[in-house]
């Protein structure tokens, strides 16, 4: 009976104990590829510079993945610089993706994630985007495609020989996560 206030005191005296994450995930070997299509040819820009972290608590994990816009390489520096301009990469140099997933989702073969993407000065939520999961040892590989479009982010379609590229800009995701 007398110990209860003492216990309460101890719990309250160490508030950070209640804030500790149950588990954390770290992104490794990321590959993000955007695809744009033009009547004359299609282009893919690849980045391996993404960084990500997941913080899990009470069965829910908050993930943040970020990648510098200028890290995407389409194999043509002129095109990359033009891409950087049309997506306002000088002003908004990062693409960030946030999502919240249940912790047990790591055991599934497929997950559907609500993705909040900040890019080109816009924030857009893509709901129920399917991703495939493959677990190898402690690592989990996630693959999928984000059905992004230029108009979602208010990006004016770039033109080549006065012909604009298509509005669709799917982004392929291939990431390996490991628990920290």
């Amino acid at each position, binding site marked *: 009976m007398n110990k209860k206030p003492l216990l309460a005191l101890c719990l309250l005296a160490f508030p950070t104990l209640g804030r500790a994450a149950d588990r954390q995930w770290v992104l490794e070997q990321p590959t993000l590829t955007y695809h744009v299509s033009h009547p004359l040819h299609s282009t893919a820009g690849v980045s391996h510079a993404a*960084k990500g972290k997941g913080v899990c608590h009470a069965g829910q994990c908050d993930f943040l993945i970020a990648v510098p816009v200028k890290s995407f390489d389409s194999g043509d520096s002129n095109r990359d610089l033009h891409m950087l*301009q049309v997506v306002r990469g000088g*002003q908004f140099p990062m693409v960030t993706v946030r999502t919240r997933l249940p912790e047990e989702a790591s055991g599934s073969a497929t997950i559907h994630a609500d993705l909040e993407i*900040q890019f080109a000065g816009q924030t857009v939520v893509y*709901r129920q985007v399917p991703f495939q999961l493959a677990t190898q040892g402690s690592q989990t590989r996630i693959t999928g495609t984000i059905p992004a479009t230029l108009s979602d982010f208010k990006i004016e379609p770039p033109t080549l020989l006065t012909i604009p590229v298509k509005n669709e800009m799917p982004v392929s995701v291939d990431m390996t996560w490991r628990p920290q």
Partner: protein
Amino acid sequence: MRMIRRRTIALACSCFFTAPLSSFAQTNDPPAAASAEGDTTFSAGDAAALSPRCAITPLAMAALRSEPGAGADPSFPEDQASSPTDRAQAQGQGQGQAAPPAGNPAPPSLEDLGFGSEQTQGSAQSQALLDKRSHMLKIHQRLGLITTVPLVATIFSGGLAGGRSTSSSGRDLHAGLGALTATLYMTTAYYAVFAPKLPGTEVRGPIRLHKALAWIHGTGMILTPILGAIAFDQKNRGEKIHGIASAHGAVGAVTAAAYGLAILSVSLKF
């Protein structure tokens, strides 16, 4: 009596220890953010006083309610305090990501990922440089396409200017079209040459071929009109084209071919 005293001390201590907890919950959020919610207007210190969710919280709340300016029904600070990350989410078009409940670890931030502020902070100057570069290169592209029209016409009109033809009007037409082509070409080149360069950018891909071909058609666009002028004078004097002027047609053909390839090098994927 002794028991009551102990409990009172324990209760007082618990509140003493929870005060930093409430301050911690508020430090990431400026007072303006709280007032922007429209619930109440109170300072970070007021919010800290409201926060402890311990047994005496209702009492403390009641005490604060009686204070002037404390608002009629203040919500819990956990509802108002949000990290910069949460605010960024709230500013977006879509929501869908609920703020974490109190006591949860903060969601990861860009700093957690190891990105420095120099990487995450954009600048209007950088964007302005990119905008100017793209603007100039778009004009370069358009003028380059427009230039192909008089260039092709000049090639075809070449048949009227040389050979056995003695018509001065054919030569004049060819010379006029050639002059127009050269003028448009130089204007086109100006927008490429003087477009801002971004420091530290390595030139990769088909643009390298495009730039290499520019050395060929650039030289050709200077030589061709000079050789054409010499040939024009020789023809006007009634002479057969001879000497260096006889290379005018060949140089023009190479120039036109290099120019066409330069356009294709950035248009087609190969």
